[in-house]
């Protein structure tokens, strides 16, 4: 408590002074239930959005080139990973630098399962990726629930740095530095024999992304999502309100790890391989950069962040090709930009892109957005006393 900035405390006092209904999302109960139209049900709204999004993406993927479809497929798994991290960090206040490593768990699960003589169907493989990563996430999360801020960041960083070492320790089984190759076979014949493989991959990752977003959106508006936020904002108060803090934190970590596992499995399917080099610390940090850029805690922000994670390397590569800057620039420019983005967004606009969008919408509706706190759990421009 002692660490909270003064503005926030003042705000908390103000909120306490108001009547309670203004601060809690007023639950619609009793007679008013019968007056709700279908659109007032969260699930219906989210399902509708998902179906609309699905249709739009179907049109989009069918009208672009194979290379664009490949890029869209990449966006798909980044959405899953960034959305998972944004729920953990934005809604529950835990930071993880180990999501690249959790993606590696998913990718190697997929690679090992698809290597067998008669491979399982891709859907089942992806489900198993989710299960494995969730199990690993439960282990990490159980330790994480005891750790706070920088300690948690350090421990998950150690996880991210250390896990790729396993592939060379067990190089017989996991293929060492060269990794494992993953083949998922051609698209189903019912789609026609000249159906582009990239479009099929884009459909796989986009369906996964839509399902993930739908589930996470419902989770975040549900009772569980509210307990996540309560634990984020004040652990002691949450505990007093009857929330099991440690269990909530482990649950948030497991949900997030499951998303990372799915993203890893999808990455393996799209790239056709699982190599330790793909799951470096840089991957963990770029996922974090995506989440921060979009706005921590916002699922829409996760989508912008994921698009940026694909667009930026592609832009960097085409720019360095045009000016003939060589491979060093090509492969390192995105890292440089992610780093600069993390710093600049945190210093200038901690709510990320989605914060800007919200502010615009607020202007549009003639409403001033809440100046102190949004869903991100990060305070907006806390003024620094002069030293």
């Amino acid at each position, binding site marked *: *408590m*002692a*660490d909270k*900035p003064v503005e926030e405390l003042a705000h908390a006092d103000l909120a306490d002074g108001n009547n309670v209904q203004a601060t809690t999302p007023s639950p619609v109960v009793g007679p008013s239930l019968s007056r709700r139209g279908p659109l007032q049900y969260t699930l219906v709204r989210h399902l509708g959005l998902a179906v609309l999004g699905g249709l739009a993406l179907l049109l989009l993927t069918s009208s672009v080139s194979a290379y664009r479809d490949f890029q869209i497929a990449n966006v798909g798994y980044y959405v899953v990973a960034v959305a998972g991290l944004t729920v953990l*960090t934005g809604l529950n*206040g835990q*930071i993880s*630098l180990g999501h690249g490593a959790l993606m590696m768990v998913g990718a190697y699960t997929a690679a090992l399962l698809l290597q067998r003589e008669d491979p399982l169907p891709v859907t089942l493989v992806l489900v198993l990726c989710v299960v494995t990563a969730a199990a690993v996430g439960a282990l990490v999360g159980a*330790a994480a629930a*005891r*750790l*706070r*801020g*920088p*300690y948690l*960041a*350090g*421990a998950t*960083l*150690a*996880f991210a*740095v*250390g*896990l790729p*070492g*396993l592939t*060379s*320790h067990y190089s017989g089984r996991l293929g060492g530095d060269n990794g494992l190759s993953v083949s998922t076979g051609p698209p189903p014949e019912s789609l026609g024999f000249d159906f582009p493989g990239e479009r099929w991959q884009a459909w796989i990752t986009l369906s996964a992304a839509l399902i993930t977003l739908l589930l996470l959106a419902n989770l975040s508006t549900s009772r569980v999502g509210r307990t996540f936020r309560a634990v984020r904002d004040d652990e002691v108060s949450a505990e007093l309100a009857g929330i099991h803090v440690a269990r909530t934190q482990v649950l948030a970590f497991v949900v997030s790890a499951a998303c990372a596992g799915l993203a890893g499995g999808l990455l393996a399917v799209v790239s056709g391989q699982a190599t330790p080099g793909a799951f*470096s*610390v*840089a991957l963990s*940090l*770029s996922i*974090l*950069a995506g989440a*921060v850029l979009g706005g921590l805690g916002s699922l829409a922000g996760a989508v912008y962040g994921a698009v940026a994670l694909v667009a930026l390397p592609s832009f960097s590569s085409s720019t360095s090709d045009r000016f003939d800057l060589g491979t*060093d*620039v090509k*492969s*390192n*420019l*995105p*890292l*440089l*930009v*992610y*780093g*600069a*983005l*993390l*710093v600049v967004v*945190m*210093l200038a606009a901690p709510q990320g892109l989605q914060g800007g969008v919200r502010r615009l919408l607020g202007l549009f509706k003639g409403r001033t957005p809440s100046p102190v706190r949004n869903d991100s*759990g*990060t*305070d907006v421009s*806390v003024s*620094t*006393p002069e*030293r």
Partner: protein
Amino acid sequence: MDRFLSVTISGLSGGMIYAAVALSLVLIWRATRVVNFAQGAMAMFTTYLAFTVLEHGGSYWVAFPIALLTGLVLGAFVERVLVRPVENGPPLNAVVVTLGVFIFLQGLAGLLFGGRFRSFPAPFSNKNYNLGNVSTVSPFEIFIVLSVALVAALLFALFQYTDVGLRMRAAAFSGEVARMLGVRVGRMLTLGWALAAVAGSLAGILVAPSVFLHPNNMDGVFVFGFTAAVIGGLDSPVGAIVGGLGLGVLLSYVASYAGGDLQTLSALAVLVFILMVKPNGLFSTTATRRV
């Protein structure tokens, strides 16, 4: 048994390097309650600058102080310009900013110096002296131990016996009161970061001959330094050095008896174990901070 002895000794000299990283993290944590995740990358970057000097024909004894001096400047810059605005905000924001610096410097190093591994020279021989038929310690290992010990001793003397040191301790202990007594708190915190970064740069240039120079070469070393700092409670310079030495010996056993690829995961195990069993570390004197 002979092997055990030489593994222990090389663990101690490696541990001194982790101790230097841990020391820099502890100094920064004491001053500003921020863990500087960019410390490893900053050390990597200054080592690259030293390498550039060597490449252009400079001697090791020119490159060495250049690495430390650029570390000093870089540390001051990062605190004053990037970390200062988030220092009093939520802890998560400061963590994210240092992570941003971390990945920015890795990208910049890859962009300027290329991504291939380069060998970095050691100023003294790496060949172990033999005592009878037991191989013991190399001149370079002695140099590592002595230089880290010297820097640690200088820092200790600065903090304990000088006026500036007293001001720095006051600024870190209670900024508000120190400011009322006329201490330029902001300046002291910047100086604290700068000195800490010197310790980090020292670790970077000392570890480079054994892990080679590469934009990612400090990732593992940083994790070990962080673990060592946590063993010491993240708050105690003595704890950081003891933690570094202990961890160095332990990891040296892991590397030679189980496999070098498992070092980082072993450090993670130690880290989690310490945080579970004695979250304030073995040397911490301050009370638990409930956040």
